[in-house]
């Protein structure tokens, strides 16, 4: 065996390996874990999210994604795009500033960090003097104004982060320039707000936390205006024309201050506490946005009545007599409003509210009546309910794909029609539907950049099972993981809660007018509903779903809604075993009588395992109409055509009491967890003692620290130790069924092949059952028969995690119905078949039907790693079009990914992929049939990786820097054709049209999104010729905005 380890130095093979295998982590799907900052560039139309681990992620049009990671592992606190540029500044919680830029390299934009900077105060100053509270990038893009805790505003020059000390606006300087009557109050403290005058770059507004707001003239270094509020200041908004300032305060109120030439306003003329009169929480951020119609939009965060709604996370929108408090299920990190991007435009005309909550991104359409939510094309909250399992199906037939989308679209009626569409699929028919949809619907508003990634070659589905009993169907074909359809199994069961509990339970005239938005709901009503295994047949539309309480549902895709009873069957896996008592949860109670089902996957059979232990393995054969399921007690086979049980087999060892005591997770490591919790208690006692603030000095203190030291020593004295013991038949959970597999192969003799079911257990046993499935014409008349044909006990007794039968050409047998649909060559039934058994420790190939060992590869004995996940995949060569090889993709408990060749079991390549400590990441890994895979990097994010050179889904996108674009236009004014080298369908005849406001325009436009881009760039080129910097900036903003406001 050791000869395997030596890399066989066959140069031809090595070259071929380079053509076949390549490891890349390509894209992160889902919602960033622990977001901490939000930024938006109206000119680029790109959204930025910073996280507590120091990552920043940029999102534009669907498929346009960038990710950057700060070297420091500090939370990103603020993100600011430099106006009109492809550059952004981040502030971390260690008070450091970082400048990032999107640079074009090889035709593709890349996000990279250029510069970093930490503000230093004068020697001897308190650290708070330079603690940055607000960052204002000046519209000149040359300067950064930094408000600090000390009340000073520092000025830093970009891009080199050169501190301009002579331009610092200290609070003393401001104080001196204030009239006498204001000076007596200590109005300063830290800077809470910094804003540039919307029209005049020489004026900035400085808001101090004690309630003073001044407008500062940068050139004259003087106070132009000041406003004094009696309340603590939280934030400030400057109306678009600069004539009104709206400040929000800690008492839950906001004030409007008209800006006039008078230097002093005695009292705010208009002040309002929206949710008064009882004490309210602070309004932390406010937007005051003008519209063409005249009535402004007031959008603010917080301000809820303290006593009864103080714990809600709300953002209120007030407009034209309507008021809604959007109620989020998780904390609001930050929000922004998408408005007219052209600074010259007279009105803001807000069209969308973008809210970054702790667990999801919520976008509200402000143009449609009722302010419906918009379904974002990315940043899906995968963890709305915790993910319990996942299943990937490659290459979905178009028919099924369309039916799933149709079922899903009926579920999304509450969403706004403003949707993000994925790039058009390549198939003509699908493309047509796609384009139709695009014309009917408005475009996703955050659509900066261009995705250059080729259209996904096929349709892939990722199915995730959740704790609340739902299965979500995700379009995993491309860079954007989009929710297509959600299936809930809850309806089948009687639960405490009413499934019809709508999102909006509140009555019409409630105050405050709360409205729940968002889908994040981590609270499961009943943990038994959790989905543990999923199996979808992509050809027949049959789906099997199994859960925590031993429930197995078989579902069929139906395009119509239906009302029918679900057939219930109990599978007694203990059979005649006597004297056992199940101490775990009870089985779920099925709803009697007919149940109403939406269009989509509708259950028709429910098999409930007895005892109701978690289902640990599941297999579905849609051609034979059989479903096999296994738990820690045994496995069973169910004929879902005739709706009867074929057989059950108990795999439980007579001495294994533990397996009966209940849910695995609770019992498995009871002893261990007890031990650990004691240790934890001891350790926490030690550390809490350490953390306690210093008491009176002297004897007591000393004694305590001594005790601490001995405590620490105690902890060190109990090192972790591991027992070395061979596995034995008496071990617990040997009967746990880990894998089930259907195969049409030579089980009994080498002359006749027959359907067979294979099951592998935790104790290293493989059971093989020969099946007799009646021919189609007598399928309903004759019963399916099964008899045990083989039982293989692997002597090393390691858990069997995979079973596979290879045909005469050593190719894994095709999936059921694959051959019938002409999508696979029929398997070779001439040559002898081989059985591959993968245990956690070894790979072993046996000849069939004799089950004589042929080959093996030991993994654990040689490397100490164990197989956690295994999947057969085919790998295409990046050079030869039709060349492909079948291999095994293997994930070990150390987080390594290996490719092991079939059938010779030679290790091909090995890459480290997941940190070995990341147990949940390793447990969540799922392989695709094309050498890609997914695993969870946080509860809410899938990392996508690829082992293949050929099948790679990664973002490739271009964000044109507004500046360079602008300059190029200025130098020579090319036609749109020359401006970019990309091919395009035709010219544009819609120059100067308003794009956003006119759906007519949508129809007039050509099918290609690129054309839109070209039209924009033409517009931009036309404007860019004006002289001074302000109009240049206007052109930038205009060119990249969603269309011209004032033409």
């Amino acid at each position, binding site marked *: *065996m*050791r*000869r*395997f380890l030596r890399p066989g130095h066959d140069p031809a093979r090595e070259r071929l390996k380079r053509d076949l295998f390549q490891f890349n982590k390509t894209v992160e799907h889902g919602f960033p874990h622990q977001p901490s900052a939000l930024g938006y560039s109206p000119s680029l139309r790109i959204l930025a999210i910073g996280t507590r681990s120091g990552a920043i992620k940029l999102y534009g049009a669907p498929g346009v994604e960038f990710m950057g990671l700060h070297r420091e592992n500090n939370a990103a606190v603020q993100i600011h795009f430099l106006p009109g540029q492809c550059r952004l500044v981040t502030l971390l919680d260690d008070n450091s500033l970082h400048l990032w830029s999107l640079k074009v390299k090889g035709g593709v934009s890349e996000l990279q960090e250029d510069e970093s900077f930490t503000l230093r105060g004068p020697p001897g100053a308190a650290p708070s003097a330079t603690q940055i509270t607000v960052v204002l990038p000046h519209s000149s893009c040359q300067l950064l104004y930094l408000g600090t805790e000390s009340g000073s505003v520092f000025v830093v020059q970009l891009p080199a982060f050169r501190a301009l000390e002579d331009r610092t606006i200290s609070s003393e300087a401001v104080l001196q320039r204030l009239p006498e009557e204001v000076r007596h109050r200590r109005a300063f403290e830290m800077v809470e707000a910094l804003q540039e005058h919307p029209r005049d770059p020489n004026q900035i507004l400085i808001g101090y936390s004690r309630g003073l707001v001044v407008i500062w003239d940068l050139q004259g270094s003087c106070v132009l205006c000041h406003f004094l509020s009696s309340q603590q200041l939280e934030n400030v908004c400057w109306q678009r024309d600069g004539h009104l300032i709206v400040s929000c305060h800690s008492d839950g109120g906001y004030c409007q201050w008209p800006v006039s030439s008078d230097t002093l306003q005695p009292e705010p003329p208009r002040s309002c506490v929206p949710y008064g009169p009882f004490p309210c929480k602070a309004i932390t951020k406010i937007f005051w946005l003008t519209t063409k119609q005249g009535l402004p939009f007031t959008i603010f965060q917080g301000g809820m009545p303290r006593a009864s709604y103080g714990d809600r996370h709300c953002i209120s929108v007030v407009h034209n007599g309507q008021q809604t408090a959007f109620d989020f299920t998780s904390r609001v990190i930050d929000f922004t409003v998408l408005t007219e991007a052209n600074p010259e435009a007279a009105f803001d005309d807000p069209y969308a509210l973008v809210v970054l909550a702790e667990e999801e991104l919520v976008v509200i359409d402000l143009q449609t009546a009722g302010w419906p939510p918009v379904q974002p094309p990315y940043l899906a909250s995968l963890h709305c309910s915790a993910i319990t399992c996942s299943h990937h199906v490659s290459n979905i037939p178009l028919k099924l794909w369309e039916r799933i989308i149709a079922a899903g679209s009926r579920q999304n009626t509450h969403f706004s029609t403003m949707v993000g569409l994925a790039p058009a699929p390549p198939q003509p028919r699908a493309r047509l539907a796609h384009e139709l949809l695009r014309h009917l619907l408005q475009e996703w508003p955050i659509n900066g950049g261009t995705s250059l990634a080729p259209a996904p070659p096929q349709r892939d589905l990722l199915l995730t099972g959740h704790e609340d009993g739902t299965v979500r169907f995700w379009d995993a074909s491309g860079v954007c993981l989009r929710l297509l359809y959600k299936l809930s199994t809850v309806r089948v069961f009687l639960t405490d809660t009413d499934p019809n509990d709508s999102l909006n339970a509140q009555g019409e005239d409630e105050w405050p007018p709360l409205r729940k938005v968002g889908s994040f709901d981590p609270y499961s009503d009943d943990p038994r509903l959790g989905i543990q295994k999923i199996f979808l047949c992509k050809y027949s539309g049959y789906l099997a779903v199994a859960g925590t309480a031993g429930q197995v549902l078989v579902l069929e895709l139906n395009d119509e809604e239906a009302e029918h009873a679900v057939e219930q069957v109990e599978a007694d896996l203990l059979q005649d075993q006597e004297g056992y008592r199940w101490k775990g949860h009870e089985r779920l109670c099925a709803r009697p009588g007919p149940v109403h089902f939406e269009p989509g996957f509708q259950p028709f059979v429910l098999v409930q395992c007895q005892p109701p232990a978690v289902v640990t393995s599941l297999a579905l054969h849609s051609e034979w109409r059989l479903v096999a399921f296994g738990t820690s007690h045994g496995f069973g086979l169910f004929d879902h055509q005739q709706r009867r049980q074929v057989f059950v087999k108990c795999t439980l*060892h*007579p*001495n294994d009491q533990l397996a009966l005591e209940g849910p695995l997770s609770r019992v498995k490591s009871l002893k261990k967890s007890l031990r650990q919790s004691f240790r934890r208690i001891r350790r926490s006692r030690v550390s809490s003692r350490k953390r306690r603030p210093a008491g009176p000095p002297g004897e007591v203190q000393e004694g305590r620290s001594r005790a601490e030291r001995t405590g620490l020593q105690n902890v060190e004295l109990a*090192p*972790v*130790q*591991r*027992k*070395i*013991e*061979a*596995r034995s*038949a008496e071990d617990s959970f040997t009967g746990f069924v880990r894998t089930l597999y259907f195969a049409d192969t030579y089980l*009994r003799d080498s002359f006749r092949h027959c359907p067979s079911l294979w099951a592998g257990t935790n104790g290293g046993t493989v059971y093989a059952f020969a099946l007799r499935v009646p021919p189609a014409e007598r399928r309903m008349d004759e019963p399916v028969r099964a*008899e*045990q*044909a*083989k*039982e*293989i*006990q*692997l*002597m*090393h007794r*390691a858990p069997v995690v995979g079973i596979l039968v290879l045909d005469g050409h050593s190719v894994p047998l095709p999936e059921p119905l694959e051959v019938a649909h002409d999508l696979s060559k029929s398997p070779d039934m001439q040559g002898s078949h081989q059985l591959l058994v993968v245990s956690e*420790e*070894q790979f*072993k190939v046996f000849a069939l039907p*004799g*089950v*004589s*060992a*042929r*080959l*093996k590869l*030991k993994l*654990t*004995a*040689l*490397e*100490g*790693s*164990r197989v956690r996940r295994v999947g057969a995949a085919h790998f295409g060569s990046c050079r030869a079009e039709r060349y492909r090889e079948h291999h095994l993709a293997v994930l070990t*408990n*150390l987080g390594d990914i290996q490719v092991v060749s079939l059938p*010779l079991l*030679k290790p091909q390549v090995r890459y480290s992929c997941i940190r*070995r400590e990341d147990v949940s990441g390793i447990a969540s890994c799922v392989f695709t049939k094309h050498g890609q895979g997914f695993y969870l990097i946080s509860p809410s994010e899938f990392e996508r990786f690829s082992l293949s050179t050929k099948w790679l889904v990664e973002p490739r996108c271009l964000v044109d820097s507004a500046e360079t674009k602008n300059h190029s236009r200025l130098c020579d004014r090319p036609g749109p054709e020359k401006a970019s080298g990309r091919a395009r369908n035709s010219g544009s005849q819609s120059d100067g049209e308003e794009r956003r406001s006119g759906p007519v325009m949508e129809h007039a436009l050509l099918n290609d999104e690129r054309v839109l881009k070209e039209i924009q760039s033409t517009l931009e080129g036309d404007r860019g010729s004006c002289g001074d910097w302000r109009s240049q900036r206007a052109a930038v903003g205009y060119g990249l905005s969603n269309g011209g406001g004032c033409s």
Partner: protein
Amino acid sequence: MNRSFHKSQTLRFYDCSAVEVKSKFGAEFRRFSLDRQKPGKFEDFYKLVVHTHHISNTEVTIGYADVHGDLLPINNDDNFCKAVSSASPLLRVFIQKREEAEHCSFGVGSLSRRRRPLALREDGPRRRTHLHIGLPHDFRPVSSIIDVDILPETHRRVRLYRHGCQKPLGFYIRDGTSVRVAPQGLEKVPGIFISRMVPGGLAESTGLLAVDDEVLEVNGIEVAGKTLDQVTDMMIANSHNLIVTVKPANQRNNVVRGSRALGSSGRSSDSTASRHSLPAAHVLQNLPPDEMESDEEADVVLEGVLEPRLVPRPPPGSLARVNGAGLAPGLHSPGREGSVQRLLSSLRSDPRHSLALPPGGVEEHGPAVTL
């Protein structure tokens, strides 16, 4: 319960099947008797001993002087039985506190050595004959020290045989730090150490492994750079034929290489201590890799349980390999057959195989084909 144990006063009134026992703990003697035919369980014997010495709260090891004057351990039913049956006429039992016992291990000549240390040093060559004492039939190989000639003297490669043995391997490992000599001086590196021995386990009974021994290799693969869990998994995966290379914490018991061992001047009394009464002391040199493969476990395949007529019958060839590896040439065949029987019986005792199937129908497959 302790029907077979009697106080020594009553000895005279029983027939000659009684064995007189003289048990010594420190300077104290106790006398009692045992039934030669039915000595009972070791566990009961242990309880009786600690009870009669009033030392029930201390951990002790029990040894006895065999016919050759060697101090041999009594720590399981087998050697207890052996001790009682071979006692002539008196069974001399020595009790030591466990912590003390670690420093003077059992072994050939260990008892006489302590008595006459001077004499022993001179008669080194004579004692070599002790190695050729015929092995009692009931003994089976449980361990061996191998590859002595290719390893540094400070290391020990121990092979544990679990085949045909009901005992658990019985040890624990832990993380620790070891000191290595590096070009720039001594450096501390993480290492894996044996942390605990399960009393009565295979590892303990061999005496070749001890607490705080550093584990360097598992079946020829270095553990440096591997985590505790990895090493645990490797050991368990190799548990059917575990070869552990350790650096013993107690370096006084190292096996001395052949050439030096001959020169009596080079021998300290310590170097002989690891000479065991068990066949494990047979040094197997250069275990060929083939052999490591050959004793590979063979999976058991049951064909169609509907015709229950089969019994697992391991092929004799592979069995011979399983056991032969540890036995030095020149062993008489009865010993080998004994272990074959034991192995078979152990297989049968496995409930999975207790279908009481007659021989003949089982497909057994030899070791896997190596590419």
